[in-house]
C-alpha cells in the first residue's frame, strides 16, 4: 500500500520536475498583468498582439518555409541515399551508416560553427540560403534513420518483379517500392520538420544579419527584455512540436493497417 503510494508520488514528482517550467510559461502567456510577479486574470491579449507584430510574423514565415523546404529536400536526398545503402554489402553498409549517424551525435554548436566557417571560406553570403543548406545537412541523417528500417523490410524481389513485368526502373520504384517505404518517408519528413522547427544554435551561426527564424527572434527579443508576447510564441512552438511528435509516432502504425 505504502509502496504503491510512494511509487505514484515519485512519478508525479518526476513529471512536475519535467513539465513545471513549460507549464509556468504557458500559464504566464495567458496572464493579463505585465509582470511575472502577480496574476492579473486570463487574457488572449499577448497572442493577439503577437500576430500584429510584423517582424514576428516574418520570422514565423521564415521558420515554416525553411522547415518545409529543408525537410522536403532532405527527404529526397535521404531516401535516394537509403536505396543505395540498401544495395551495399554488409561491411560497406555498416561504415556508411556509422558515418551518417555521427552528425546527429555531434554537438549543435560544433555543427553550427563549422558550417558557418565553411560558408564564409567558400564566399557564400550568409542568409536564407545558408540556413536552408545547413538545415538540409543536419536533417538528412534523421531521414535515413527513419527510412532505412522500412527499406530493410522490403522484399528485394518486388522491385525486380516489377522490372520483370515490363516496368522501367523509375516506374517500378514509384509504383512498387515507394508505397512500401512511404510510412518511413513520412515519419522521416515529420522528424526533419520538427528538428528544423526548433533548431536555434545552427540557425544562429548560419543566418547572417537581418534574417530571423522564430527561435533566433525570441533570443534577440529576450536579450532586450522579456515581453509576455514571447511566452505566447514559445507556447505556440511547444504545442506545434508536440503535435508533430504525436504525428510521427502515429503515422507508421496507421499505414500498417
Amino acid at each position, binding site marked *: 500500500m505504502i509502496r504503491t503510494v510512494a511509487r505514484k508520488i515519485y512519478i508525479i514528482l518526476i513529471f512536475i520536475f519535467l513539465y513545471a517550467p513549460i507549464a509556468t510559461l504557458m500559464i504566464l502567456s495567458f496572464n493579463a498583468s505585465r509582470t511575472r510577479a502577480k496574476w492579473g486574470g486570463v487574457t488572449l491579449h499577448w497572442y493577439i498582439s503577437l500576430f500584429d507584430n510584423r517582424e514576428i510574423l516574418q520570422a514565423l514565415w521564415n521558420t515554416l518555409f525553411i522547415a518545409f523546404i529543408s525537410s522536403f529536400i532532405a527527404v529526397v536526398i535521404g531516401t535516394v541515399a537509403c536505396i543505395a545503402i540498401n544495395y551495399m554489402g554488409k561491411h560497406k553498409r555498416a561504415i556508411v551508416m556509422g558515418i551518417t549517424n555521427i552528425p546527429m551525435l555531434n554537438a549543435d554548436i560544433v555543427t553550427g560553427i563549422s558550417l558557418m566557417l565553411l560558408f564564409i571560406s567558400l564566399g557564400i553570403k550568409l542568409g536564407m540560403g545558408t540556413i536552408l543548406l545547413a538545415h538540409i545537412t543536419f536533417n538528412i541523417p534523421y531521414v535515413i534513420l527513419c527510412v532505412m528500417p522500412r527499406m530493410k523490410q522490403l*522484399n528485394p*524481389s*518486388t522491385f*525486380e*518483379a*516489377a*522490372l*520483370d*513485368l*515490363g*516496368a*522501367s*526502373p523509375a*516506374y*517500378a520504384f514509384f*509504383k*512498387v517500392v515507394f*508505397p*512500401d517505404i512511404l510510412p518511413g518517408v513520412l515519419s522521416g519528413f515529420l522528424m526533419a520538420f520538427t528538428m528544423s522547427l526548433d533548431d536555434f544554435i545552427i540557425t544562429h551561426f548560419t543566418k547572417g544579419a537581418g534574417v530571423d527564424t522564430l527561435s533566433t527572434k525570441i533570443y534577440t527579443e529576450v536579450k532586450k527584455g522579456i515581453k509576455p508576447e514571447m511566452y505566447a510564441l514559445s507556447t505556440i512552438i511547444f504545442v506545434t512540436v508536440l503535435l508533430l511528435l504525436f504525428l510521427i509516432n502515429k503515422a507508421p502504425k496507421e499505414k500498417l493497417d
Partner: protein
Amino acid sequence: MRCAKAKMTTRRLLFLPQKAAGIDLRKITYIPEVFEMNKELINLVDISKSFDGEMVLDELNLNIHENEFLTLLGPSGCGKTTTLRILGGFVSPDKGRVVFDGKDITNLPPNKRQLNTVFQKYALFSHMNIAENIAFGLKIKNKPKSYIDDKIKYALKLVNLEGFEKRMPDSLSGGQQQRIAIARAIVNEPKVLLLDEPLGALDLKLRQDMQYELIRLKNELGITFIYVTHDQEEALTMSDTIVVMNQGYIQQIGTPETIYNEPENAFVADFIGDSNIIDAVMLEDKLVSILGTKFRCVDTGFGRNKPVDVVIRPEDVELVAPETGIIQGTVTHLIFKGVHYEMEVTANGFEWLVHSTGMFPVGAEVGIKVDPFNIQIMNKPASEDEEAAAIEE
C-alpha cells in the same frame, strides 16, 4: 575438370549420351519427342560470372528448346540461380552471350525481355489487390480495360483461384500467393517462364500438389519453363530435361531417366537419389571387378584394367540365398520404410545399401546379385579438382 568440361560443351541435347550407344535400348523407356521436334529458343554461350573474385559460372554452355520443361538442379552455390538471373536480365555475365530466338539479348534490361519470372518469395505487391497485381504488366503495355479484365479472369481460373480479384496478398496462404505470382507472370504471354525455387517456402504436401499443378500449367500454356531447384525429387517429377550443376559447372544434361539410371559421375549419382558408389576396375569390355569380385556389366569402351566408379542403385541390389549370390554378406541394419525395407549389408568390406520389398533380419547371411544391366560404370574424376567439386556439397 578441363576434360570433363570440354565434353559438356560439345554435347548437344539432341543426342543421347554417347555411352547409351552401347546399352540395350530397352532400358531407355522414354525419349521425349520435344527434343527432336522443337527448335532451340535460348542459347547460353560461354557464360562466365564471378562475384567478389569468386567464380560462380565458368564458361557455361546451355541450349534450351521451345516448349521444354528444363530444370537446373544442384546444391546451393552451384550457380543455378545465377544462371536464371542472367536469363532474366538481373545479372549481367562477365563474359559470354545470351541468345534468345536468334537475337543477342545479353545487354537487354529485364523490362525489355520476353520472359517472366516467378520469384522464390512470391514478391507480390502488398499494397495492391490481386486483380491489380495481375494487371500490372498489362497496364504498362497499355492494353484496353476489357482485355485486361478477361485476362485476369482467365489467369485466376488457370491457377484455380477464381473470385480472388479483390483480396489483398496478405490475406492469402503461401501456396495461393505463389499461384497468384504465376498468374501475374503468365498473363503477359511470355515465351519462357523462369521459376526460382517457387515451391521452396511451401510445406511438403502443398509442394507435391503444386508440382502437378505446374506440369498441367505448362502443358496448357505450351511455353518453355526453366525451373531452379535443389530438390531432386521435384526435378525428377516435373522435368523434360534436367541440368545437374555443381560449383559453376554443368555435371550432366539429360532426361530424368538418363540422369537417374546413367549418372555420368559420382556427384550426379550421389545427388540424385540414394546410391552405392564403389571403387572398381574395368577389366575388359562388359566385365568389371567390384571389391575383388568379377561382375558382368553391359558397358564397353573403357579399355582394359581401368579404374572406374560404379553406381548401383539400392533397389537394383538383389538379396538371395548365400550360395546363389555373386558375393556373400551379412545384414547389419534393417528399417521399414513403408513401401520397402531399407537394409545395410556388409559384403567384401563395403556397406551395401539395399531397398527391397523382401526382408532379411539383422545378422542373416545373404548373397548379393546385381543384373549386369543395373551396373552403371562411370569414369573417375579427371583431376583432384573435379573430385573435390564432386564430394564437397
